[in-house]
């Protein structure tokens, strides 16, 4: 197998709010009936996280489960474990109507870390990110600047962002520029 490298190879834009590429991350798109008990239990088995409710993401260490749409979930596992996780899903859902696909290398993971990371994100996304409406555990698919992205909060000061690999450089520079611009003081 070829030597896998992440889109930006761990690029970092340091500052009061740091923008950092997350490196290799295993990502599996799972489409199917999300109310299916077998589907929920295998998702829990491969990540250790409980199955998320609508619009939420759940985490267990660096693993995560995210609710993408009424029939789609995103599974985050270590990059090296992706094939094993898909094999487990295939085994558990054998004979059912579903799709589990390894999209790890089609996407990029970026972190925005720091005290005003909320404001950095709010500059780029048409989403109400006020602390009263967006908290760790909430998950949102939307656009950042001009490209599609999804993000959630790992903790009070850290956002994790997923975008397509082809626009990773744009997304990284957009967020780095927003971070460099400083805090707005709105939240």
């Amino acid at each position: 197998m070829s030597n896998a490298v992440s889109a930006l190879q761990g690029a970092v834009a340091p500052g009061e709010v740091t923008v950092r590429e997350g490196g290799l991350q295993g990502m599996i798109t799972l489409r199917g009936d999300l109310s299916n008990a077998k589907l929920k239990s295998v998702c829990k088995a491969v990540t250790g996280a409980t199955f998320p409710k609508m619009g939420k993401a759940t985490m267990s260490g660096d693993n995560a489960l995210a609710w993408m749409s009424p029939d789609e979930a995103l599974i985050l596992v270590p990059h090296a474990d992706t094939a094993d996780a898909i094999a487990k899903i295939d085994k558990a859902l054998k004979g059912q109507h579903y799709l589990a696909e390894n999209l790890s290398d089609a996407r990029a993971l970026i972190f925005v870390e720091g005290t005003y990371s909320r404001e950095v994100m709010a500059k780029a996304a048409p989403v109400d990110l006020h602390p009263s409406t967006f908290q760790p555990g909430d998950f949102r698919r939307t656009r950042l600047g001009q490209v599609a992205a999804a993000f959630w909060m790992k903790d009070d000061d850290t956002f994790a962002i997923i975008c397509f690999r082809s626009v990773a450089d744009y997304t990284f520079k957009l967020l780095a520029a927003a971070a460099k611009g400083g805090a707005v003081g709105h939240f």
Partner: protein
Amino acid sequence: MLTLNCPYCGKDADETDLHGEGEAHLKRHGPGSSDDEFHDYLFQRQNPKGVHFERWRHIYGCGKFFHAARCTATLQVFGTYSAQTLEPPQAIKDTITAARPGWSWGDFS
């Protein structure tokens, strides 16, 4: 700026998160229909000033199509609802009646 609540993922989506998909509740006329019916199905659209029903797609979000009822003159949104329906739910109709008594749109009122 229009903000619609997506009934499939529950998020308030800004107009830039969405894609307009034209008029809602079109009745399809396919094989076996007359030329006039097919022509109207393809080309004939309502263009009301006031209450209107539209299809939208949450294109940057969950990717689902949904329906929205709104006023084209004031941009007031009466509500959004599932696309898996042939007519607006009664709750949406009641909301419109409260705001625009005597409204009608296509076969609905």
